[in-house]
């Protein structure tokens, strides 16, 4: 076969367009941009946030679709074609340096998002996301509004829950430090409140807990656990001062179960996220022991009711006596 100029030019174009017809033409003729069950239109502010998301290259680190095989935050809903109806451009993304954001709306509170955009390490110490504080406050608000809209109607349900509980949490906080903790404890299901930490607070366990604390907690709750980390000025109610818990042990004894539940479940409405996707039982119990020992000077680890000790447990005796009753507040 001889390549003449005409054969080359006409042939190259013909094969190209025939091939292209299959991959672009056919989908254009057959794919419909019909909204899915969770789809809703974006508000003007959210649309402005979407423009900022596109302009600033958020999509190079965040994807916008959940796959069948995903476990991470947002994985409750597998992406459907109609989720993207009318979005221009709907950038699905090719990289997850940060988490997928397609269902991020309402996962975190609004104030958490403001702190996070100002400097991601305020809320997430291990983050490598750039700080966006060179954007105006209005722009950060728009960006946060867009992120809070991701997930459509599902996000709206979550956002509504966030805002309802935020109102109650703020009211409790306004009632004073001790009233606040009483309110917080009251939200924890009864079974968890009288549950001691079943696992020993050994040196190794405390070390592991410390590592988790430094990776996930330290910039809200601060290195000394007083809740004055760099994120604090952004958050309302502010992060909890753990040291006060010493005078709020349940029956002057129990705190492990409360720690476990609050870490696992988060406190929706406040900036405290749930960590059940990030941490499994061993890490949460270790962290609970670390918080208790470091900031309360007391842990209920291995106290009654303790059940049958797990086979790995050594002969660890809890050296921490409960605080004296009627401590001055």
């Amino acid at each position, binding site marked *: 076969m001889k390549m003449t100029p005409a054969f080359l030019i006409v042939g190259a174009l013909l094969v190209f367009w025939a091939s292209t017809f299959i991959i672009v033409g056919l989908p254009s003729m057959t794919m419909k941009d019909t909204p899915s069950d969770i789809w809703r239109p974006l508000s003007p502010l959210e649309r402005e946030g979407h423009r900022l998301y596109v302009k600033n*290259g958020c999509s190079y680190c965040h*994807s916008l679709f959940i796959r069948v095989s995903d476990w991470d935050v947002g994985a409750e809903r597998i992406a459907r074609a109609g989720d993207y*109806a009318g979005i221009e451009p709907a950038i699905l993304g090719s990289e997850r340096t940060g988490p997928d954001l397609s269902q991020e709306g309402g996962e975190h509170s609004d104030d958490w998002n403001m702190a996070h955009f100002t400097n991601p390490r305020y809320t997430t110490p291990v983050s490598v996301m750039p700080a966006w504080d060179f954007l105006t406050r209005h722009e950060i608000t728009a960006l946060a509004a867009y992120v809070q809209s991701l997930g459509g109607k599902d996000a709206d349900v979550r956002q509504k829950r966030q805002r309802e509980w935020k109102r109650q949490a703020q009211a409790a906080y306004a009632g004073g430090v001790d009233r606040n903790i009483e309110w917080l404890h009251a939200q924890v299901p009864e079974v968890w409140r009288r549950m001691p930490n079943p696992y020993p607070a050994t040196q190794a366990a405390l070390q592991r807990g410390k590592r988790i604390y430094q990776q996930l907690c330290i910039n809200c709750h601060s290195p000394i656990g007083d809740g004055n980390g760099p994120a604090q000025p952004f958050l309302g109610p502010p992060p909890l001062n753990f040291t006060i818990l010493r005078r709020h042990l349940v029956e002057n004894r129990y705190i492990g179960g409360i720690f476990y539940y609050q870490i696992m479940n988060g406190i929706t409405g406040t900036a405290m996220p749930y960590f059940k996707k990030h941490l499994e039982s061993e890490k949460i119990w270790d962290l609970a022991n670390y918080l208790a020992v470091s900031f309360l000077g007391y842990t209920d680890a291995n106290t009654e009711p303790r059940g049958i000790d797990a086979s790995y447990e050594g002969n660890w005796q809890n050296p921490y006596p409960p605080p004296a009753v009627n401590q001055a507040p």
Partner: protein
Amino acid sequence: MTKSFHKPQSAALAFMVAGAVWFVVGAVYGMFSAIHLVAPEFLPHVAPLVFGRERPVHVNTMLYGFTGTMLVGVGLYYLPALLKTRLWSEPLAWIAFAFWNLTVLSGPLGFAFGYTQGREYNEYVWLADVSLVIAVACLIVNTALTIVNRREPQLYVSIWYFMATFLWTASNYPLGNVMWHPATGAMPGLIDSLFLWFWGHNLPGLLITPLATGAAYFVIPRVTRTPLNSHTLSLLGFWFLIALYSHIGGHHVLQSPIPNWLKTVSVVDSVSMVLPVSIVVINLWLTARGFGGRVWNDPPARLVMGGVVWYIITCIQGPLQSLPFLQRVTHFNNWTIGHAHIAMLGFGGYIALGAMWHVLPLVSRRPVYSNKLINLQFGLITFGLTGFFVVLTMAGLVQGSAWHNGETVLRVLPQLSPFMVMRAALGIFILTGSLVGLANLYLTLRPARAEEPLLRGEEAA
């Protein structure tokens, strides 16, 4: 001034020099990006240097600026040379040069300040798109009319690729960039991802690949002084490439809710890509068979053959990566970044550099300043890129396996930092390689200075 725009091969040289400059610019932005993945607070509060803005500058400058520009320059030399004629119009090639580089320039000047369409590989704003299409149109006219005015009856395989590159790009680019929507450059809804990845994959496949293949087909037989192994294989490689390549963009969104038949088409054709790639590589390999020493001992040809080796590695990895089973682990993480680097810097970049060094003395009528510096560049980039590829592939496997096993992105992030540190360190070698190349180019092309003998004399004294 106007005379220099008529000087034969001046545009080819300009494209090659611009490519070498863009290589340095792209590598600097790559370096910043790599540092930011290690230390996100490095140079804080500098809006143009946040990761989301510097990454597209890096990627586009490397793709269009370094690899694309340099390979066009090489082609503008071999096109008339192989056709035993002159380029139809040198000034028209200069016009293409101006528009092409304006587009590339809009990356560092635009993206850094938020002027971007934000779609990966399709970021250039509409005006820059127009500028690129004008450049491509000029190159089509120039190439076609040079072919018409040829004095060599036969069209060598490099000519096919060079001509076809621009025909395809002129069709591809406006389609993938959705140029009929100037404001967003996007289609509404999910279908946009198909347009996006249509060009997203055709950019390496139908712009860089044919340019690089054409350049390799030009350089290897010249250096080995052997005839091309097989005309039939050349034909097969060429037609398979175009028949299959445009179909495979879908494998970038394989796990998204696009129609299943599209996923099937993109996986099947991705795997089939092994055909054109092996054909090209076998053809070049057999051309050089028995004369490997000539290739190895010629620094520019060593780079070109290095590029061919990266090509076969990339294009075995690529089809495997398109398999849904493997993608469960390799998608969304640094594995893909490793792949992209061996494709663009390994395959496209090595061949661009090698062909540029090969063509440079022919265009400038001066010997290359230093072959040792070419070898140094080869060594630096080979060390940097090989390490880079290994480190990122490992990081990707760590990420993908952990995620697949239920670990969250956030929890795996701290595990990546040693890999990111190594990646940044290896990036220094690539950046140094680009600087060594630019220096070598400058030293080759600089006007001879009158005082030089005097200096030498002083040294001797």
